[in-house]
Structure formats: C-alpha cells, structure tokens
C-alpha cells in the first residue's frame, strides 16, 4: 500500500506529461524527424527490440563492471584515507581538481589511449563514479559523534576498532547516498564512452540514429537508459533494505 502511495503520483505525472506530448505532436503537426510522438518512440522501441536489447545489454555490462570496480576502489581508498589523515589532506584537493575535467574531453582520450574495447569505457565509468562515492564515505566517517569516539577510546579502542565499530556503521547512510548518485552517473558515463567510440552499446546506437535523423530511435535509447538507471537504483534500494534492518529507526542519541 505504501509502495503504491509512493509511486502513484510519479506514475500519474508521467502519464499526464506523455499525454500532453502526444497531444501536442498530433495538433501542432510537428515533423517526426524533429519531435516524434511518444507513440512513435514506443513503435521504434518495439520494432528494434532485439537490437536495442543487445545494445542495452552491452551498456549494462560496462556500467555494472565499472560501477562495481568503482565501489571497491572507493571503499579501499576511503579506508586508506581514514587511517592516513596526512594523505587525505594531500589527495583530496587533487581529487576535487580532477572533477573539473569534463567527461566530453575524457571520453575521446580514453578511446585514443586504450582503443575501442571494454577497458576505456570501464575506466571512464570508474573515473566518473569513484569521486562521489569516496566523498560520501569520507563525509560519513567524519560524522562519527564525539560521544561515540570517547566511549570507545575510554574502553581501550584503537584506530582500527574505532573505524570498524563506529565510523563505518555511522557512514552507512552517506555510503548509500553516494552509491545512488554514482549509479545514476554510471549509465550516463557509459553512454558517453560509447558515444566516443564503440562497437556496441546505447551510446553508439544514439550516434547512429542521430546520423540517420531517427529522433524516435534516439529517444528509444533514452527510454532504455532511464530504465537501466532506475533498475540499478532499485537494486541498490533492495540491498539497502535487506542489509539495513539494524540501521532503521533513526535513533542516534549521541549525534
């Protein structure tokens, strides 16, 4: 019931926007080359379902692989930076600076350096998704309440015990927030990487469709990209629910 209550407004709003779009295309007599109606997009999706599924599968593989590796690297880096505060002070400004490099510049460079295979695309996904997760984890660790710190230290806890017993559990909500942000970036980054050069994937599909003036097929890929992103977010939500029984309830006496 609560799930219905949560999603019904979004469902009705989407339906209303699609109806408006469809109505506008019918009444304004816009060329489908410029703005295809939602029904055209749906027809394009259905007619090319096999090809689109293959390309979407390729995109999902790259995004999933890059995202998974990124989670591992971000977590390992966050642990290293927690234990080495001096390194944190040195590395963080560099990390922030690295985020000013635009993805449109990175994507072709990756293809140039590493070719058209899996590696450049996975690397790009890692580069894009790593930073939000790392920052989320570090800001999560920094939220360790002084009272928890004092309680543990007074009982003889060292830095490892402090991290394992308190900093890590305290950082959980921030970690999942970072995961959600990075998950949305993962699909977009993959499509960018494919756009810069690939044999398969939604990015190359979009590029080909655009070159053929098939706006309906471009939008079909956009729909699929949204479905992939929402599926990834749904999976993360499920993992959060299944593993987070201890963390629900929001009681934090010392915060």
């Amino acid at each position, binding site marked *: 019931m609560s799930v219905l209550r949560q999603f019904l407004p979004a469902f009705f709003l989407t339906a209303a926007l699609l109806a408006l779009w469809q109505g506008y295309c019918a009444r304004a007599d816009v060329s489908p080359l410029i703005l295809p109606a939602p029904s055209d997009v749906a027809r394009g999706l259905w007619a090319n379902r096999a090809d689109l599924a293959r390309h979407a599968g390729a995109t999902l593989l790259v995004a999933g692989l890059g995202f998974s590796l990124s989670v591992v690297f971000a977590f390992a880096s966050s642990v290293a930076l927690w234990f080495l505060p001096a390194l944190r002070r040195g590395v963080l400004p560099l990390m922030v600076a690295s985020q000013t490099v635009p993805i449109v510049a990175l994507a072709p460079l990756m293809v140039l350096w590493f070719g058209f295979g899996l590696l450049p695309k996975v690397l790009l996904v890692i580069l894009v998704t790593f930073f939000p997760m790392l920052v989320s984890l570090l800001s999560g660790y920094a939220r360790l309440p*002084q*009272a*928890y*710190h*004092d*309680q*543990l*230290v*007074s*009982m*003889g*806890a060292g830095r490892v*015990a402090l991290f394992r*017993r*308190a900093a890590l*559990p305290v950082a*959980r909500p921030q970690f999942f927030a970072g995961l959600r942000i990075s998950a949305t970036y993962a699909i977009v980054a993959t499509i960018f990487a494919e756009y810069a050069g690939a044999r398969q994937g939604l990015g190359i599909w979009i590029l080909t469709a655009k070159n053929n003036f098939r706006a309906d097929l471009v939008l079909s890929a956009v729909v699929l990209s949204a479905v992939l992103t929402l599926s990834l977010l749904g999976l993360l939500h499920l993992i959060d629910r299944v593993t987070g029984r*201890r*963390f629900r*309830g*929001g*009681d*934090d*006496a*010392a915060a």
Partner: protein
Amino acid sequence: MLRLEDLTIRAADRLLVEPTSLTLVPGQVTCLIGPSGCGKSSVLKWLAGVLAPGLTAEGRAEVERTPLVPPSPALAYQPQQDTLFPWLTVAENAALGLELSGLSRRAAQARVRPLFDRFGLAGCEDRFPRELSGGMRQRAAFLRTIVLDAPYLLLDEPFSALDAVTRLRLQDWLLARLAERPRGVLLVTHDLYEATQMANRILVMAACPGRIVADISLTTPRPARSEAALAGVRADLRSLLMEETP
C-alpha cells in the same frame, strides 16, 4: 586508592582547571559538583583518556601506587549521554567493552546476558536501544560500564537526561548495584540532591579557573539520609555554589 595530583587543564587562551588533586577510595562515592564550565567533566575526561580536542593537560595519576596512563582498564567511564550504538542490540552494546578488552564475542555475551535480569532488562537482550525507555537505556549503559569490572567508575552526569522519578529510582538502583560490589566512584553532577543522596564525599568546584574549594565528608549512613538530616549540608553546598558562581 586512585590518586590524582596537580592536574592542570588549559584551553588555547586560558587556564581551565588550576592544579587540582583528589583521591578516590574503593567503596566510596565521591561527587564532583560545581557550576557549568568549571572543568569538572574535563577532569573526568582526562582520567578516562578522552580530553576534548583543543585542551591540553598536565598532571599525574596513580592507581594502587602504580602510575596511571589513561585510558586504563582500571577505570570505566560513562559519559553524560548513554551512547548506546543504535545499530547494536542491547546485549551487543553491553558486551562492547568486554570485546574491546580482548574477549571473544561469544565469551562477552556469556558474561553480560546473565546480568540482564539484575539490571531490570530481562527480555531486552536482542532489542535495539530505540525500543527502550530512557531509564532502561541508562541501565543498559550502566551494565556496559559495570560489567567491565573496573575498580573505579567515572560517571559524568549519568542521570541528567532522565525525568525526576526515573532519576530517583536509578540513583537507588545504582547504589544497590555498588553495594553488591564496592568500587571507587567519581560522580560528576550539578544536582545538590543527587550529590547529598549518593556521595560519601563531595568536592565542590568553582569556575574561572576551575578549582576545588570545599571537601565535605558525609558520615550519615545512606538509610538515615532524610530531608531533615541533609538540610544543613545542602544549605552549606548551596551557599558555597552561589558564592563561587559569578
């Protein structure tokens, strides 16, 4: 006996506590009472090894004539808030200190679980702190402190977050627990009633800079501590605190 000698605590720009000495005697409750900001919690935190960041301290402490390097297993510290970790069950919270002292998870659980009944927490072992009342949470925090079996307890206003009735009940309850296994207790409070009800000895601190200005021994046995019997001591304490509070 725990002996603290010439403890001086400084903030960046001022002297917070001037050289202060005190002793804790096994089996006795010593109350440190004083106005807010006089440094009483900082003295306690220094002994617990958790002096607030930004403060520096010099001083010596020894337990049974052995130099004390805080944090020490000879001292169990309980801060003002119960600091039960919300993601741990009550039994896991209670066993936390034991696990940190090197006991296995199973052995620590085996030590704490039989004590739940005596601490009025029977049936709460596998519940989360959010499911307990304020008084029960505080008893769980006491269980976590007391099960460490340290000969000296450092309690920083442990009853301050509780309502009046729960506070009175818990004070009696804590005295009963202490009677079962006597320990030296340093109790920080700014509640006159609590101090006179619980203490064998009251050290009055003044602020700016923090220093001990009176040392009052309470010789009346606790069962005989009626309102009338304590009226004189409370009046003395009240006037001392009023004099020393700017």
